[in-house]
């Protein structure tokens, strides 16, 4: 029954995505188990100067409303968070969000590498990292940080991706635990949820 061999030691799920990840992200959020026990922290590439609309679009079908955290906002269990436009988003050791306007990384702000890397540092082997479809290599290094700290990594099955560059870059750079279709990622999260109930 426990197909992915999970346990209840995880503290957070971090998800990166870019071009072609929107539909997958919606599917994941709309099928998220009720009262999901972990925070979901998302860094998705987006238009830098459009502050509104994206979080609303993600929220429409999401089981839990998605919010863009303020700087210093505490990370809460069950919260679903999206990196705001034109800011990099990190998590601090005290489990609060930190935003920054540093230079773009991989041509992106928010950069997935920054969010994944900071989560890896804070949550270590208690982190699950998921990387979806995308057209550049942002996120690959972040996934390597997660693997190096003993976290669990998942990339979207490249053949299912609208653009496979991003998951492929991660697969080339580091060990990835599971290569899954979006439907299987949904299954994975359901199974994870069960470990906490």
């Amino acid at each position, binding site marked *: 029954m426990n197909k992915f061999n999970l346990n209840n030691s995880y503290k957070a799920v971090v998800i990166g995505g870019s071009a072609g990840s929107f539909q997958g992200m919606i599917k994941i959020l709309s099928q998220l188990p009720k009262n999901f026990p972990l925070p979901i922290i998302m860094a998705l590439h987006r238009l830098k100067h459009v502050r509104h609309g994206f979080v609303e679009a993600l929220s429409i079908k999401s089981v839990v409303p998605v919010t863009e955290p303020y700087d*210093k906002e505490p990370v809460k269990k069950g919260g679903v968070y999206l990196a705001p436009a034109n800011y990099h988003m990190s998590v601090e050791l005290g489990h609060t969000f*930190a935003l920054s*306007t540093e230079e773009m990384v991989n041509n992106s702000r928010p950069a997935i590498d920054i969010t994944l890397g900071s989560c890896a540092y804070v949550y270590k082997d208690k982190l699950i990292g998921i990387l979806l479809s995308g057209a550049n290599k942002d996120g690959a290094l972040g996934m390597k940080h997660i693997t190096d700290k003993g976290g669990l990594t998942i990339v979207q099955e490249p053949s299912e991706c609208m653009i496979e560059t991003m998951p492929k870059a991660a697969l080339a750079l580091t060990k990835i635990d599971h290569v899954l279709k979006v439907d299987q990622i949904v299954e994975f999260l359901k199974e994870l949820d069960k470990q906490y109930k």
Partner: protein
Amino acid sequence: MQDIDIADLKKITELIFQKYRYDFRNYAMSSFKRRVLRILELKKLNVETLLKKLNDSPGFIYEFLDELTVNVTEMFRDPGFWRILREEIIPGILLNHKQFKIWHAGCSSGEEVVSMCIMLKEMGILQDVTLIASDLDTTILERAKAATYTMKNMELNEKNYIRFQGTGNLKDYYTEENGVAVFDKTLLANVSFRKHDLVLGEVFNKFDLILCRNVMIYFNQTLQNEVLKKFHESLFKYGYLAIGSKESLIWCDYASRFIVVNNEEKIYKKIKD
């Protein structure tokens, strides 16, 4: 990529504090660490050689500060914020004072200051306003004084200006010379640029409006609260404080002395001494 642990970061901040009197000990850890790692990479140093360089070559500190601070900025950043300033906040100040004072704390390369002067000019009140623009980083302050920006950045600045719905055309305020936009210096006639450290610096004046946007995100909560205290002291009663759109004062003790006048654009008003 090399990593750096907290003990090493502490050695660096201690040395800088003891030797140069800049205090980064309460900066937000995640971004501070990335900045230091970036410097190590840029300057081809490791922690030991960095400490040695900071200790042995006094001139290096300015280079270090310039790289350490995050100077990324834009003209008319968050155009909606500037519209609220023009349509609500400044008219509110003008009800009580025909002449008033603005402080840009952490002005970086000055785009925010130039934007302010353009807006005040379009409102016909530029001559009535005294502005102070300050930053910790002297290298970037020189760039702010020059008010020249690479044309590469002007596309974004123009877009922001259009969304701000200025009365003219941003091109009216600068001339293009060798790939840089040189802004009309008369715009900045009422601006004094000064080096000022928000952490160790004294309160030096009183203002009707303070802009400190995307600066306190680099501080931890303790430091934020201390700096907010200084802003509180630097504001006239009923003066305004504007912070970045993704910042909030709710985690600061001093927040109770302010009310939110615009939550979307994060503009606060001091209501209690």
